[in-house]
């Protein structure tokens, strides 16, 4: 079997349409991020208490809410988790009183309503200091990962490739955060790990295409700049599609069968890798072309 045999798609010819698509995604993301509900930070970062509870029988949100009424200043979030027996309860605070933490308070409140017909399967409580620390560390990690990759790119490629790769990856990060907001995925350590993986994957994808361009520029063939770019994208197209295909296939398996805890992580990766694949063809390469065109115009004027 052979897909895209001798493909000659004019990817750069439709770049304006691709820009519109990107702009639409970014606008949509911006809507969710800034107008709708924004980013929802998990207890990892805000500090607070999360408790996953499994009841012996189906229980409604109202019943759970009734049982824990008044805790955490009434700011408890109750979320069904898979089945109607499983719930995740989030409270914004960590320490209730000097001697008791919120987790203990929650257990007492649940026990007084449900007796022993429930069990706590997971708790996560983070003090405000640790939360702030993690926020800083996560931001640092993303920036350092980004910076180091850039330095590496600068060594391996010309600067304009680096600039194009950065713009493409930035594009992916922004849109991914838009998705995270739209699908209401909590920002946790795992989400940050997913975003960093997307950064790695997207750069990787872009590098493969750029590597081919670099090689084709060295060739003696007489063709327009834009033609070389198009040819390179087309030549690497089977690889792009196949690798995205296998990666997405495993991620879908994770999304469907991996369970509730890992599902948001898989979802973010699926969307991000989809966008990363799109951007290496429709953002990174067009940006390279725009840089080249801008240069030429300047030279022509001079």
């Amino acid at each position, binding site marked *: *079997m052979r*897909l895209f045999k001798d493909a000659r798609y004019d990817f750069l010819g439709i770049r304006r349409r691709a820009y519109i698509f990107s702009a639409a995604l970014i606008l949509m993301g911006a809507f969710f991020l800034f107008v709708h509900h924004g980013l929802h930070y998990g207890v990892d970062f805000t500090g607070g208490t999360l408790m996953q509870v499994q009841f012996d029988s189906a229980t409604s949100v109202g019943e759970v809410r009734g049982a824990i009424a008044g805790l955490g200043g009434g700011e408890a979030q109750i979320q069904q988790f898979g089945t109607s027996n499983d719930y995740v309860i989030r409270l914004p605070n960590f*320490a209730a009183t000097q001697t008791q*933490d919120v987790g*203990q308070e929650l*257990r007492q409140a649940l026990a007084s309503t449900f007796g022993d017909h429930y*069990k*706590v*399967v*997971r*708790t*996560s*409580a*983070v*003090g405000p*200091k*640790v939360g702030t620390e993690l926020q800083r*560390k*996560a931001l*640092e*990690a993303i920036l350092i*990962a980004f910076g*180091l*990759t850039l330095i*590496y*790119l600068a060594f391996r490629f010309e600067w304009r490739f680096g600039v194009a790769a950065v713009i493409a990856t930035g594009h992916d990060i922004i849109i991914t955060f838009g998705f995270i907001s739209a699908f209401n995925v909590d920002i946790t*350590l*795992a989400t*940050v*790990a997913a975003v*960093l*993986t997307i950064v*790695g*994957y997207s*750069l*990787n994808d872009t*590098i*493969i295409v750029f*590597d081919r361009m670099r090689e084709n520029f060295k060739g003696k063939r007489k063709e327009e700049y834009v033609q070389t770019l198009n040819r390179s994208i087309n030549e*690497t197209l*089977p*690889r792009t599609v*196949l*690798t995205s295909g*296998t*990666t*997405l*296939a*495993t*991620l879908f*398996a*994770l999304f*469907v*069968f*991996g*369970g509730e*805890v*890992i599902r948001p*992580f*898989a979802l973010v990766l699926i969307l991000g890798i989809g966008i990363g694949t799109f951007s290496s063809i429709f953002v990174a390469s067009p940006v390279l072309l725009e840089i080249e065109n801008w240069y030429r115009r300047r030279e022509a004027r001079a």
Partner: protein
Amino acid sequence: MLSTIKGRLLVIGGLILVCAWALFPKTGPDGKSISPINLGLDLQGGMHLAVEIDDPNHTMDAQQRADAIDRTLTTIRNRINQFGVREPTIQKAGNDRIIVELAGIENPERAKEVIEKTAFLEFKIVRSGDELRRALPRMDRAVVDSLGPQNLGTPGLPGESASAQQPGLKQLLQGGADTGQAGADTSGGAAAAGKGAGPDTVGGDRAGAASTDTAGLSTRPLSALLLESGTPGEFLVAQQDVPTVQKYLALPGVQSAIPRSTDLEWGASPVGEGGNSYLPLWVLDHTPILTGDQLADAGPATRDPTYNQPVVPFTTTRRGAREFERGTSRHVGDLMAIVLDGKVQSAPVIKETLSHRAQIEMGSGSTLQEAQDLALVLRAGALPVKIKIVEETTVGPSLGADSIRKGELAFGIGILAVIFIMVGYYRVAGAMAVCALCVYILLVLGGLAGLKATLTLPGIAGLILSVGMAVDANVLIFERIREELARGKSARTSVEAGFQEAMSAIVDSNLTTLITAVILFQFGTGPVQGFAVTLSIGIVASFFTAVFVTRTFFMIYLERHKTGEPVSI
């Protein structure tokens, strides 16, 4: 050796053997089988705690903190060892934090208490309470002076004060030796206060409260909330008034009015009286007659048959025995409060001089389990400072098992999908890639086991993700080979060129992903580090399998391949 097929197969076979050996189930010294791969707390269930020194006012300097952290670490380690957890992790993180990880723990709440309890034990003689009664007017004035009379009526809501609602309690109190006539005094708290000092101050106030007079609270805000219990040296405070009294007692003016060498300590558990509950407030000698550091051993905890309350027997050191003798011989017949972490557990009568052996009475509200845990922490020693938990994660064993099962399923299905795509698209070459993928999986798992890395749930996700990405290198190579073949080159030259030309792209892409993984490892905690570790091992292994293993397979394939026949790719 690497140029011949035989040599290459030897290398691959050797690696497979090493990995298989690393993955072979082993039995530990206790006869139980040990999982070859360390499972993270999120997979096997357990508890992760981060604790710090509780020093909100920064009274300690860096040297003291460092010293306190080290001693705390030792104490926590002792306690956990006695608690009986297999392979606990107790380590310092940075300069001022201790991480405790207890895998597969059954009762996380209990473990938490054992870790958190300062276990600072003191034995103090109970005072008669008369000195405090004499000091109360001064303390009342100090409260009024520092808060202003207009701010006093509200906190306890006098009309609803428990003392006002509880005739039963009033009777109980009237039975008290020094408060007999007070109940009859209905002239109100203000009048009683005007009389100044005297043993009936407290009683007079009670009467005032009983007649729902709010004046008592504005002139005698503190004494109005203190009720006689009938036991000398013990006062009772209605539960809802406890925060108010705590606030008053913390005022500097009140502090300085407390009689010299006297401590006020709260009881550990409330007592019920006529449907309401009260927290005892004890008047104690400031200087303890014995402290917990003079304990040589404690336990085993038993239940006292006569009073049906758990007791913890203990023996003292030689010096402790002398101190204890000296302290108790002068106070036979008095009450001795057993104070744990600033809370009075119980206050039994000293029947005879105590020395080498004694026991701690826990009070009837305690369980035997609590007594056993107390014995444990007393044996392991008190923490040098108060600590607080700053982060806590627990995962039940059922959730962990569920995660493993689901992870395995997703892993299996993900691999099947990759096999389907690769064989469907590249035929024989695809099958080679799949074989290489199997080697890859074995290498990753063996690497995890050999490096003693911990597999977490995000780690499984990283593993599954890396399978999808592992074929990338093979895809790059195969596409190159196809291009070379399309240009009419021979099979051998095309394969050779394919591997060579794809190399720069493979190196670039693997290195950039590795950078990300290493940074993730640097910044991450537990689960995220697990993800970074599997991703890193995955990248290294995939590079090896895609470049070396697949190439060997191709060499074997070309060996049997007749010139001119099409290459199945």
